[in-house]
Every structure is written in structure tokens, then in C-alpha cells.
């Protein structure tokens, strides 16, 4: 008989189920449990990555912690550029219900806040297939608040940062600007983009159903704010320099102009201004003319402002002294078939007189006793043809051809500043050799804590002699008398360079230069001015550029608190003040 399971004691109900069936059921159930156990072990222990990730996606979020872009400060810590929060408005066009009269009314209110016409706003919202449209980026924060208050469905905003430049136009070329993504595009913003930018941090958090952060997980990477950059620029001097330059450019109906003010002891640039300029916050319709930082990126033939350098080299050889006579009669000289002439016949001059009267013939005669190599070495040593060691994008190196290719007539023209080119910055820097007792010091746009060690080029005596000649040139009987200031002795050389157009010099197109230093005995500032194509009235460096030099020197020295070194008639009147009861 087959074995079966007895489910009941009643023989009537006895089933004929064989025992193996129930055993199989038990076995299958056991197998099922083993399967579940294995699956559980897999999910919990071995293959849990996937599930944990999926879980985390649902409650954990990585938040970016934005880093602030560093500020740009002037030498006194005043802000030249800083980031402020701004609201950027975006929309999901499909969600904006334009047919609803209430929404339509709100949209009409929105348009003026965005400084857009209602039609332009409608055009932005027209394409309903798009799921994301920028309406306007980087609006002022309070405008963003007003838009938030309108509460239009489908219009959202995002917090961004925008750069603000409180000094505006005067320092635009120095500071530069950033684009909408906060990357530097021009000037110091570009040169120091890496330092200014900083690094965004991040942290992982758990959010609850309401979107509130309830817990931080893992380590938080704190944001690294960008460094502040402190420039050597003094914003007050910068402003005055820009203002004087602008007035002069407009007065003489010139095309453009630049001015550079340098601390004669440290090589720090106190001001660097160009006109035309632009307002960094409003950059629509910007032209290349406005954008160019002429003082650094453009090179020109310096003309007569070069003469002091040539004379310095000549004095250094020991062949000349300031009182050595130089005969410039008859105001012309023939160099291998080309004629070099002066505006007048100055007759018999001294070396000092050559600078004072700005005689091309005299300079040519002096340069003829120098070798091309001597001149080239002198010019290179003070920075001509060399890329300036300055952290600024697009700094031009100018042109100084190797001396072996110089023809005699070229050597002659170079001695008075034609046939080579330099930027206004290079010109300014070259004069540090006279201001610092023969040492040339590197220029910088960043604040220096201690004066740099200069490279000796000339002897102290030569530097002093040239300074006295510069004082003569800016004094009575010189070409730059309009450079005089009240109370401070000044020395400087004017220059009027004909502009080259194509291969030839253009008729009636000039650049007026003036480069000089003050006070003469212990120079504190070097100022260089260039006005491009003055077209009304005069075009001479002595009449167009020298007055700018004068005013800029006057203001700079006053702001620096330098005591006058010349007699001034005091006008201090002690007014008795009536005491009130």
C-alpha cells in the first residue's frame, strides 16, 4: 500500500494524497524563502550601490556654493570694481497665459521694468515650444524684487552677480570689464581673471518634501572667494588726469589722447587715462576707438620727446658736457643726401640749448659722434623695442630695429625720435632713468610696498644734467613753457610728431607729445601726455600737450602732499572769525 498522509481520523474523509506531494510543497516553500533570502542579501549587501544611488537622487541634492569674484581696489583701498547680486529674468513661454486679461495687464507693467517695449516682450514669449527663455539678464536687484512682487506665472528669476564700476569712464581702460558669465574681457579684469575668479564650493544635503535642507551629508567644500587686487592707481589722480585730457582733446578737436602718471620713485602707475573712453556698465554700441587702451597698446613715433634720451647717451660717453658748443647753422644738415632741418636757424647752441630749443640739427650732430651700437644699447636699456614687464593684456613692445641694419640717415632720424616707435607707457618708463639718478625702474600697475631696485644705465651726474636741461626746455625760452606749474619746478620735453599714413608722412596730421617730471631736483612724478591729431588752433606739443602736463602735475603733487620747491606768493589771509553768541 502506498503511504499517504492522514488529514483526518474519519476513514470517509481519508484522502489519497501521497506523502511526496506534501513534502514537495514544503521543499518548494523552503526554496522560495531561500530565493527571497538570497535576493534580500543581494539588495542589502552585494548590489546595494544602485539602490542607494536611486534613493539619494530622491532626497539628496548637491548645492553649489558660489564664490564671490574679488574686488579691484585703488591704492587707497577705494573700490574700482565689485560684484553685486543681480536678478536675471527667465520664462517658460507656455506657462505664461497671455489671454488672461489680468496677466496681460501685469505684462504691460513688467515691460517698463525690463526697459523693453511690450512688443519686444511679447516677441520673447511668442515661441511656446521653448521651455526656457532668458528675458533679460543682470537687472538691478531691486528691480528683480519688484518683478517678484508682480507674481506672474511662468516668469521666474535667477540670482546672478554683476560687476559694478563706481568710478566709471575715467578708469574704464585700466579696470576693464567682465562678460555676462563673469569672465574678465579687458584690462585688469582680464589680466588677473584667475586670481579674481575664486573657486565655487559645494555641499551635499538631504532635503525634505518641502524642499528644506534637513541634513548635510559628507564633507562640505567651502567656496574660495576670489582675491582682491589692489592697483597702484590713485582714483583721484586718475579722475583729474582724465578730465584734463578730455577737455584738451575736445578743445583742440583732436581724435584721441592719452595721459600716464607714474610715481617716479617706485614705478607705480598712479593714473593711466585715455580719451575717448566708455562707461563700463553701458557697453552697447561700443566702438574700437573707445575700447582701445592707447597708452599701452598703441605705438607711435615719439618725435622730440626722444631727444633727452639721445643726449643722455651722448653725455654718458664723456664726449659731451651740457655746455659743449654745437653749431646748428644754417638750420639744415645733409646726411647722405637727405636734408634734416630745424624750424629756425638757432646758430651756435650748447648741448643744453639743443634740448631747450629742440633742435633736430643739433641732435643729429651729437648723434653722429655715437656709434649705432651705442645708441641701440642705450635705447634698449631704457625699454625701447622691449616688451614692458607689466601685467596688462596687449602691452605693445614698439619697434627698434637691430643696429646693424641702421643706415646713417636712420641713425640721425632716430636720434630725434623718427624711425622707431614706442607706446606712451614705454615713453613714461624711459624717463625714470632721469628721475632716479640714472636707474631705470620697471613700471607696475599693482601697488608696491617698497621701491624696486633699478638697473643703472646712466651715472647720477648725467641724469641730473639731463633733468636740468628738461627744466630749461620747460622754462622761459624753451618749447614747453606752458608746462609750468605754481610752486613746483618742472622739467619736460615737448614733441610734435608727424603722423605716418601708409608709407609716407601725412600733411597736416600730427601727434602732440609732452613727457616730463617734477619737481626737478627730487622728482616724484613722471607725466606723459599724447594728443592725437589736434585739428583746431595749434598742433604743437608745447601748446596742446604741455598744458595737460601742467595741470596733471599740479593736481598730482598736491594730492600726494608734496611741498612746493619754488617760491610762491602766499595768499593766506587770516580772516578773523566773528564769534557768535
Amino acid at each position, binding site marked *: 500500500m502506498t503511504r499517504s498522509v492522514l488529514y483526518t481520523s474519519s476513514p470517509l474523509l481519508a484522502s489519497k494524497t501521497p506523502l511526496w506531494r506534501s513534502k514537495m510543497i514544503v521543499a518548494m516553500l523552503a526554496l522560495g524563502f531561500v530565493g527571497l533570502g538570497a535576493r534580500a542579501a543581494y539588495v542589502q549587501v552585494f548590489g546595494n550601490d544602485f539602490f542607494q544611488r536611486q534613493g539619494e537622487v530622491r532626497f539628496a541634492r548637491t548645492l553649489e556654493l558660489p564664490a*564671490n569674484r574679488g574686488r579691484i581696489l585703488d591704492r587707497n583701498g577705494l573700490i574700482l570694481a565689485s560684484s553685486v547680486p543681480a536678478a536675471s529674468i527667465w520664462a517658460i513661454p507656455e506657462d505664461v497665459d497671455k489671454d488672461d486679461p489680468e496677466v496681460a495687464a501685469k505684462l504691460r507693467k513688467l515691460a517698463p521694468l525690463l526697459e523693453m517695449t511690450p512688443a519686444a516682450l511679447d516677441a520673447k514669449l511668442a515661441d511656446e515650444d521653448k521651455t526656457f527663455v532668458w528675458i533679460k539678464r543682470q537687472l538691478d536687484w531691486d528691480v528683480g524684487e519688484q518683478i517678484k512682487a508682480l507674481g506672474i506665472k511662468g516668469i521666474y528669476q535667477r540670482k546672478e552677480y554683476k560687476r559694478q564700476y563706481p568710478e566709471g569712464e575715467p578708469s574704464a581702460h585700466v579696470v576693464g570689464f567682465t562678460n555676462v558669465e563673469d569672465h574678465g574681457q579687458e584690462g585688469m579684469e582680464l589680466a588677473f581673471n584667475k586670481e579674481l575668479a575664486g573657486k565655487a564650493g559645494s555641499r551635499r544635503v538631504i532635503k525634505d518634501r518641502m524642499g*528644506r*535642507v534637513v541634513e548635510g551629508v559628507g564633507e562640505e567644500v567651502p567656496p574660495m572667494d576670489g582675491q582682491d587686487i589692489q592697483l597702484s592707481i590713485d582714483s*583721484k589722480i586718475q*579722475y583729474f588726469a582724465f578730465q584734463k585730457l578730455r577737455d584738451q582733446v575736445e578743445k583742440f578737436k583732436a581724435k584721441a589722447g592719452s595721459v600716464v602718471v607714474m610715481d617716479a620713485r617706485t614705478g607705480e602707475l598712479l593714473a593711466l587715462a585715455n580719451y575717448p573712453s566708455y562707461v563700463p556698465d553701458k557697453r552697447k554700441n561700443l566702438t574700437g576707438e573707445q575700447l582701445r587702451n592707447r597708452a599701452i597698446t598703441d605705438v607711435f613715433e615719439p618725435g622730440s620727446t626722444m631727444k633727452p634720451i639721445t643726449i643722455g647717451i651722448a653725455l654718458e660717453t664723456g664726449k659731451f658736457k651740457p655746455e659743449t658748443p654745437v653749431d646748428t647753422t644754417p638750420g639744415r644738415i645733409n646726411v647722405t643726401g637727405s636734408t634734416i632741418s630745424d624750424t629756425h636757424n638757432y646758430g651756435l647752441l650748447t648741448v643744453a640749448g639743443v634740448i631747450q630749443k629742440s633742435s633736430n640739427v643739433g641732435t643729429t650732430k651729437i648723434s653722429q659722434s655715437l656709434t649705432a651700437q651705442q645708441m641701440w644699447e642705450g635705447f634698449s636699456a631704457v625699454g625701447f623695442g622691449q616688451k614692458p614687464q607689466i601685467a596688462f593684456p596687449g602691452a605693445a613692445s614698439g619697434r627698434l630695429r637691430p643696429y646693424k641694419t641702421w643706415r646713417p640717415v636712420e641713425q640721425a632720424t632716430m636720434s630725434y625720435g623718427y624711425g622707431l616707435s614706442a607706446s606712451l607707457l614705454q615713453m613714461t618708463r624711459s624717463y625714470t632713468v632721469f628721475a632716479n639718478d640714472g636707474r631705470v625702474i620697471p613700471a607696475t600697475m599693482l601697488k608696491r610696498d617698497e621701491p624696486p631696485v633699478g638697473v643703472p644705465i646712466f651715472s647720477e651726474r648725467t641724469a641730473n644734467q639731463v633733468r636740468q636741461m628738461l627744466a630749461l626746455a620747460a622754462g622761459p625760452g624753451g618749447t614747453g613753457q606752458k608746462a609750468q606749474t605754481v610752486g613746483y619746478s618742472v622739467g619736460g620735453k615737448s614733441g610734435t610728431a608727424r603722423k605716418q599714413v601708409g608709407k609716407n608722412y601725412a600733411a597736416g596730421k600730427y601727434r602732440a607729445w609732452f613727457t616730463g617730471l617734477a619737481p626737478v631736483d627730487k622728482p616724484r612724478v613722471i607725466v606723459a601726455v599724447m594728443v592725437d591729431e589736434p585739428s583746431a588752433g595749434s598742433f604743437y606739443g608745447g601748446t596742446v600737450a604741455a598744458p595737460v602736463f601742467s595741470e596733471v602735475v599740479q593736481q598730482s603733487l598736491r594730492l600726494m602732499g608734496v611741498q*612746493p620747491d619754488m617760491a610762491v606768493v*602766499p595768499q*593766506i589771509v587770516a580772516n578773523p572769525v566773528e564769534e557768535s553768541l
Partner: protein
Amino acid sequence: MLRLNLMLLLALMASAIFLVHSQYESRRLFTELDRAVSESRRLATENQRLEVEKRAQATPLRVEGLARDQLKMHSATPAITQYVQDNGRLETAP
């Protein structure tokens, strides 16, 4: 034996409830901290914004304009300046 088990059960329950409470408390405090941190960040940016605004109100252009027009001031020249030496002596320009 049973008494001990009951005691342990009670202790376990109490500890479990306390765990829930402290977890809740920690999350509450975390949220509060988070809110305070974002508030401080907001205030810092606000401060920066105001500083820029202050600076924009104090540009040389504006200061000069106000000094000249409203306060009827004019710039100092060496002729009307008294220079004080480092040693405290007062002298006018030479």
C-alpha cells in the same frame, strides 16, 4: 527573569523614542543653522552692494561737483597752503 526582561524592554523603548527625538532635534537645529548661514550670506552681499553704492555716491566727479556748486569751495593751490614739517614747524612755501 521576566521582570528583568520587562525592564530592558522599557529601557529599549525609552532609548528608541529618545533617538527619534534627538534626530528630530538635530534636523531642526540644522535647518535653523542653514537658514542663519544663508541669511548671513545675504547680508554680506547686501553689505557689498551698499558699499559699492556708497562708493558710487563718492566719486571724485560727484564730490567735486557738490563742493564747487553747493559749498562754493575751490581747489587749494600752493599759494594758499601752509605746509607743516615733520618736526611740527609750520611754514609757508619757500
